[in-house]
């Protein structure tokens, strides 16, 4: 019986009928990326045909959680600097978060804040691709959006139970759905053909021990989620700092001095993303644009 219920919820989340469909552009770009003849300029041109998407992408790329010293003004340089996988995830985030921002600004802020912490920690630890870690931080709670959109009635029950029993959102999800937002986020990212470097940190952000290949990245997302909750930036459903995974803490190996500096740096960077919003409709006119540039 329980299993049947879980299967039903799983199917609903997998189909994700109510989530915005991925722009066709993602498939087109994926095909292009597989072709060694494709240049980044050509990919930039494809993206820039969708003016609103292009403007959003550049805004995300230039936000404080990537922290590039110079302004990135063209999509082709964004693809070179961030890599195709990150740009693809950003296209997906931009379309999903549009819904999220309308519905749940605070979860969006929590996600942005988490991405900022991820960026600070990943750079400090010398992780090879810090941009991928920030991106994973940005989408780590995507499963919550899916549950809210696809299983609206259960989502209400989850919220009720959370308050009544004073438990975390994840505990309530497990009790009601038999699965949690991390697992749901894992399926979604897998369905979108994102790389394992993004899938594992999303699906293992509550328990980095479950990660097979990406334990360190999962540990960074796990700890960043805790820290940004502690700082009270945004709201992730429930406002309590959850348990710290021992494994994650061992992997991160941070000293008190590291923590002091991380908190200072995060606070500084949060000022820059405060009020950062994907809402740029007013800015994106219908005028002609140079392809690949904004």
């Amino acid at each position, binding site marked *: 019986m329980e299993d049947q219920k879980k299967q039903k919820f799983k199917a609903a989340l997998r189909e994700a009928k109510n989530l915005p469909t991925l722009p066709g552009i993602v498939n087109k770009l994926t095909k292009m990326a597989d072709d060694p003849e494709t240049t980044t300029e050509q990919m930039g041109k494809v993206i820039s045909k969708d003016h609103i998407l292009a403007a959003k992408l550049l805004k995300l790329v230039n936000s404080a959680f990537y922290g590039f010293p110079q302004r990135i003004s063209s999509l082709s340089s964004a693809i070179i600097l961030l890599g195709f996988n990150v740009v693809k995830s950003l296209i997906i985030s931009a379309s999903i978060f549009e819904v999220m921002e309308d519905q749940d600004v605070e979860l969006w802020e929590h996600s942005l804040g988490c991405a900022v912490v991820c960026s600070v920690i990943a750079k400090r630890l010398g992780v090879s691709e810090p941009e991928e870690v920030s991106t994973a931080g940005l989408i780590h709670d995507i499963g919550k959006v899916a549950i809210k959109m696809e299983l609206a009635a259960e989502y209400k029950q989850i919220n009720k139970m959370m308050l009544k029993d004073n438990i975390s959102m994840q505990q309530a999800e497990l009790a009601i759905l038999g699965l949690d937002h991390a697992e749901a986020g894992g399926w979604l990212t897998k369905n979108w053909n994102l790389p394992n470097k993004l899938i594992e940190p999303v699906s293992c952000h509550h328990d980095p021990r479950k990660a097979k290949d990406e334990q360190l990245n999962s540990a960074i997302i796990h700890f960043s989620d805790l820290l940004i909750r502690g700082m009270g930036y945004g709201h992730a459903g429930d406002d*309590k700092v959850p348990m710290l995974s021992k494994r994650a803490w061992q992997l991160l190996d941070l000293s008190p001095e590291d923590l002091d500096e991380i908190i200072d740096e995060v606070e500084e960077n949060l*000022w820059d993303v405060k009020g950062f919003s994907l809402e740029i409709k007013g800015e994106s006119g219908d005028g002609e644009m140079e392809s690949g540039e904004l």
Partner: protein
Amino acid sequence: MQQILSAQAKEGMILAKDVMTPEDRVLCGKDTVLTNAVIDRLAKMDIMHITVQGHPVKVQGEKTLKEELRDIEARFSKVTKVPPLMYIKKKLMQKMIASRGK
């Protein structure tokens, strides 16, 4: 450190961050003490926000220091036995107190 509207700027406030022009040039450096001349210049350059030291502007609906500290305590209430998290809590509280110090 507090981010305020340029319209709320008063003589004697001290910049906590560089003020940048839209072209990303430094208009006014960190640690500058604001004078009326500087404030006029910010207005002329259409600078909307600046970040100043301390917490000079009272914002309506803003939590008091006591409420902020109580909230931090509540957020960490389920992890009181985890030393690294308690260290973070202490640090955040100290920072909160320092930010409201002025």
